[in-house]
């Protein structure tokens, strides 16, 4: 897995690809299970109730049982839907969620493939999710779904801009789009969060909106749109969206960790080449916990407030930030 490894197509390379793909899928499913459990348990704790307790020790098997239930459900396709798109939408949402796992550097030696444009690759792939949500909303033939989908598109397009602008600030400093390069630029505790806390906050707010998490969860706003773009989905269609959401959250938090929290860096561990992934996961899950905490604390913003917040505050601030960073780097 070192950069010097020859890139010809021969068995070790094939093995590596297989290994990477399996790891990616394991991470995606493992994360969905851990997050599903964490979210429900923590939501319970925030609300002064125990959360799932019945299945297994402290409800630890709840997600497995839910999985069986969801897999076992009949695939319902409502009448007058666009059947092809309706079936495709969850897949289009879920498939791109696996791909970024290939370029995320979990530890110095744990990375599927280091792209020079790894960052752009992730952003490009993740953006496909918007299309999936739009397809889901459109094909469901339900006005609530369509409203949710339209909100989602407007929201994602708007919040992509401050997100990219803050990314550029980081890129100006590191001079590379390679995720490994960005992490290595922060080695020795020189995390970017200490140098540009504003960028970190803007980026984190933008990721909340990009992943449709509260307080920006307008596309699925239960109390207004019943379940938004997911209204008509049940069984595996629903659970693919569900897993995709958690995976996108994981990716967003991974990106935040890589860009601002120094990726895998932390106090040295034995076999640090591999085990420093622990630091990576610790940081990612701390961020995810913050996301869960926010979700169970705040009400939802209104749609115009959401867009105002983006165009009137986040975009100007991130532009100024980019300018300041450029000047500082030039000096």
């Amino acid at each position: 897995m070192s950069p010097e490894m020859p890139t010809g197509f021969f068995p070790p390379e094939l093995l590596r690809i297989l290994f990477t793909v399996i790891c990616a899928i394991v991470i995606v499913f493992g994360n969905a299970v851990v997050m599903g459990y964490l979210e429900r348990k923590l939501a319970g704790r925030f609300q002064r109730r125990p959360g799932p307790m019945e299945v297994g020790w402290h409800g630890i098997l709840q997600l497995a049982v839910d999985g069986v239930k969801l897999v076992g459900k009949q695939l319902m396709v409502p009448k007058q839907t666009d059947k092809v798109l309706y079936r495709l939408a969850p897949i289009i949402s879920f498939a791109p969620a696996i791909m970024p796992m290939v370029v995320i550097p979990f530890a110095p030696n744990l990375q599927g493939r280091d792209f020079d444009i790894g960052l752009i690759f992730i952003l490009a792939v993740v953006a496909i999710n918007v299309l999936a949500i739009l397809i889901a909303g459109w094909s469901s033939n339900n006005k609530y779904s369509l409203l949710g989908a339209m909100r989602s598109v407007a929201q994602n397009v708007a919040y992509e801009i401050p997100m990219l602008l803050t990314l550029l600030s980081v890129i100006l400093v590191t001079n590379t789009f390679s995720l490994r390069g960005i992490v290595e630029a922060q080695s020795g505790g020189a995390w970017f969060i200490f140098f540009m806390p504003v960028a970190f906050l803007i980026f984190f707010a933008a990721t909340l909106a990009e992943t449709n998490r509260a307080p920006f969860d307008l596309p699925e706003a239960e109390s207004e749109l019943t379940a938004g773009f997911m209204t008509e989905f049940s069984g595996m269609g629903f659970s693919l969206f569900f897993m995709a959401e958690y995976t996108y959250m994981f990716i967003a938090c991974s990106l935040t960790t890589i860009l601002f929290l120094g990726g895998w860096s932390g106090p040295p561990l034995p076999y640090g080449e591999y085990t420093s992934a622990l630091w990576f996961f610790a940081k990612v899950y701390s961020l995810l916990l913050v996301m869960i905490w926010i979700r169970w604390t705040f009400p939802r913003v209104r749609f115009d407030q959401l867009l105002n917040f983006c165009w009137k505050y986040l975009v100007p601030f991130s532009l100024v930030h980019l300018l300041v960073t450029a000047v500082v780097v030039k000096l």
Partner: protein
Amino acid sequence: MTTIAEQGEHRYVLNMGPQHPSTHGVLRVILEMEGEYVMDPQPVLGYGHRMHEKMAESRPWPNFLPNAARMDYLSALIYNHGYVGVVERLAGIEATPRAEYIRVITSELNRLQSHLLWLGVLVLDLGAFTPIMYTFEDREKILDILEDVTGSRLTYCYMRVGGVVRDIDDKFVEGTREFIKWQRSRMPMYDKLVTGNIIFRKRIEQIGEFSPDLARRYGLTGPVLRGTGIPYDIRRAEPYSVYPEFDFEIPTETTGDCMAAYLVRVREIEQSLRILEQALDKLPDGPAMAKVPKKLKLPAGDACYAVESPRGELVYHLTGDGSDTPYRMKIRVPSFSNLSLLPELCRGMLLSDLCACMGSLDLVIPEIDR
């Protein structure tokens, strides 16, 4: 009225309810939408119509007592109070002083739990899940206290003509005192968690503003009306039971928006606690039930009795004809008038604001349909 086709192709109809998370019951609202904007909301009523008024007219008057609890399931005791009040007024019966105090205490507890539920639900409508669990924790305590003395948790049938069915004991008094302390300690938390929350404030401030004049035209009552600055509360305007003996304020706000209704209700929680405290201190001894003839016939004539429900003015109008079956009973429920404001209030509003507005009107649908 112009049709959708005449107004342009970009209008569409969104059917909200009868099963929708934020209509809280079987209310259906037909929304004529333009994008996310609600151009014309039309409530459709009657999904929960059970002919309560007709039932009152077709059977002896005591048989209506359980019905009274089933109109507004969140303030059943106050509905109890209104019904026994109107029968007592028509038949010229006086309840014992202790019974009147018990009625006030249980009514105020009932009002508190209704307000607590509303607080959680409003915030739930705005997308925050957690406060409802906290308010339910408080509410649970009230339900436990009331269950001990009334025997039920939601649809109480506790009051009788001439008094209440069961006297309260020391355990009830102690439990209520403890609850008052507990609830006072909780209010700062709600202030921080909900009232002080910037997103919450931005969501409901200056939303659904209306003037006192509009409120009068639609016959609005309750906290929604007091939010516009009119201190109209039946407990003061048309005192009943032993309310004149207590010292409490009628909270008002002047802005008339959703935030005003919210603040009024939150401050009413404190006032209810004050009434409870005073009532427990002054609670007289004596029987909890007056001597009432076994077979009570309603004399010919009319009687009207208004009580303040958590949602506004509730009026029972009873006409007797000398038999034990009422000739006519008319019930004026507050939610019906409050809901009728919706089309005028919410025109041109965003869908999310409509949910906030319906939340702040605090509608109980079975009460509207009854």
